[in-house]
């Protein structure tokens, strides 16, 4: 058993508190801002005492942004729905494609398998803007520019390599003999994949899926270039708050709060898997 002195406990508590404040303060401040008007936000000196208002949230939900220069239409809720749709669909497709591929790369060493796997990973190295210019041309030519289909396809550049490489490590960690034992007991390889490999790699798949979701959700450049207003996710949509009559800090803050919520909820839910998953992957090396 580990024994710690009182002093050690106190010091540890102080250190932890400092770390938490350092990391949580911006989020906490944004949370407070989301309940303030532009005037109180910009007041000097800033104060944590104010009369909370729900006007920012109301503006986002109704889509009517009132500024000094008049009323503007914003599509924030639509952006949010786009974000959810794009991220969920992209991750789902990446899982359907990536998990069996990861299994194949983990279990079968065929000619060029390492090269293919590495090529897929290399999609993550390329600077997105460099890829985007030719891609835009192609997409316009193919009629894929400004379509959900095209966007989800491009999002695979983000999700697929991530899922492939994380999940592959998990499959490699499972002893092949466990699967052989199942196969020799009279099951096909597909049944083995479904009943043995998938459940055993479950935490890794969950972790990889969550990471892919976060990356997809936070993507900005692809959507900025390839999507028009009605298909843009929140990351791009937030630009609308920079208006001719100034920056709408209150609305931006509440938009951030709303757009962080789905990821945060998902992360909290999957936290167990994520921590276990990442550490297992790290041990694997």
């Amino acid at each position, binding site marked *: 058993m580990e024994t710690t002195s009182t002093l050690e406990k106190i010091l540890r508590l102080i250190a932890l508190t400092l770390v938490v404040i350092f990391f949580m303060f911006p989020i906490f401040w944004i949370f407070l801002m989301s309940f303030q008007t532009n005037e109180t936000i910009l007041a000097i000196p800033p104060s944590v005492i104010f009369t909370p208002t729900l006007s920012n949230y109301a503006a986002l939900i109704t889509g009517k942004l009132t500024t000094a220069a008049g009323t503007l239409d914003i599509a924030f809720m639509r952006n949010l729905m786009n974000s959810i749709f794009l991220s969920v669909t992209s991750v789902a497709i990446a899982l359907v494609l990536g998990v069996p591929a990861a299994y194949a790369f983990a279990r079968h060493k065929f000619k060029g398998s390492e090269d293919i796997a590495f090529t897929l990973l290399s999609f993550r190295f390329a600077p997105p803007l460099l890829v985007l210019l030719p891609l835009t041309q192609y997409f316009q030519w193919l009629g894929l520019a400004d379509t959900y289909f095209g966007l989800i396809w491009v999002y695979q550049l983000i999700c697929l390599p991530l899922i492939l490489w994380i999940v592959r490590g998990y499959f490699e960690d499972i002893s092949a*003999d466990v699967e052989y*034992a199942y196969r*020799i*007991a*009279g099951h*096909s*390889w597909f049944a083995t994949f479904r009943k043995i490999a998938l459940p055993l790699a479950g935490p890794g798949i969950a972790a990889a899926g969550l990471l892919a979701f976060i990356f997809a959700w936070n993507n900005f450049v692809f959507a900025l270039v390839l999507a028009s207003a009605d298909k843009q996710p929140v990351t791009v949509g937030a630009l609308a708050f920079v208006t001719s009559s100034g920056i709408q800090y209150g609305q931006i803050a509440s938009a951030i709060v709303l757009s962080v919520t789905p990821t945060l909820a998902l992360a909290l839910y999957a936290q167990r898997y994520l921590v276990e998953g990442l550490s297992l992957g790290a041990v694997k090396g």
Partner: protein
Amino acid sequence: MSETALFINGVDKFYGPIDHGVHAVKQLSMDVKKGEIIALLGSSGCGKTSTLRMVAGFEAVSRGTISLKGREVQTFAPVKRNVAMAFEGYSLYPPLTVRENIAFALKASKLSQGVVDEKVASIAKLLEIEDIMGRYPSSISGGQQQRASLGRALIRDADLHLLDEPMGQLEPQLRALLRGRIKHFIKERGLTAILVTHDQTEANALADRIAVMEGGVLQQFDTPQMIKERPANLFTGTFVGEPPMNVFPAGVSGSGEIVSFGLNEGVKLDYKASDFSHAVRGELMKRSKVVLGIRPYAVRRSEGGVGAKVAVNQWLGDQTHIAADFAGGTMVLVEHDRTNLAIGESVGIRLDPSSLHVFDGESGRAISHGQELA
């Protein structure tokens, strides 16, 4: 003639490209009869596990055929071969308890729950794992996992049971007990089994026939007794037997009534021509270089014997192992009494012609065992 359960015909296994990769199994041919227990015996990397995995269907056969009950199966998926296997690494399913792991093997056989429970209970009793049936693989010892894995293989009613190092992790007493029980279990049910092992005691105790492998080549495939008494070549002779066979290179000469072996350091062993059959003498005289082999327990001490100097003398509680410097090498003797010999003491050694194994000096193939041709 009993039915052939397994027939391996001219099988090669290459890891990597055929003819260019690592040649793990070379031109292996052997047959296993229904109801037989076969041991594949050899050191690590001799190809025994590769052979087992090819039979199970986990490794592709590079060349040759494998037939189970008369049908060629080398291209079949494992599921179509109806074989059971216990893995060296246990390979239990982590999310299932020991009981579920064992019962799981019967899932595909569609037996009623009552029959399954009964079978599982009897296997648990056989392997002494009744007290851990409700536990998960991660919470039990290696030896217990190994027994659970063995149980999962033995419970099945397969045409062939493949057991890869099935008892390596068990304590000696338990191993001895289970050897007997498992053999009885297999024989009683008329099952056919191939076990892979590097433990000769296990091979001798369990197997009807032993296949000795080395360097991917089958060296000898015979009963334990024949392998011990009539080793086919120098490898089998020195690999099987504890302590190993003493071997000394020798030249052969003969004149009329005498057969004479000239060992290193001028040591000369003369035998009467009548100690060997006519055919053996003929074979010996064709060669200038041979290797003489003699089992440690067949070496005798005698007053008028060839001189040797004691280097090690160990009493093991039930037998004495003596190592003596002899003809530029070491001669090991096993005696059943406690022998009082000081280190450095001179002893006379006698090698009875009837216990002598003679191998070809170049190919290592056996020429004679005692008086008779190999």
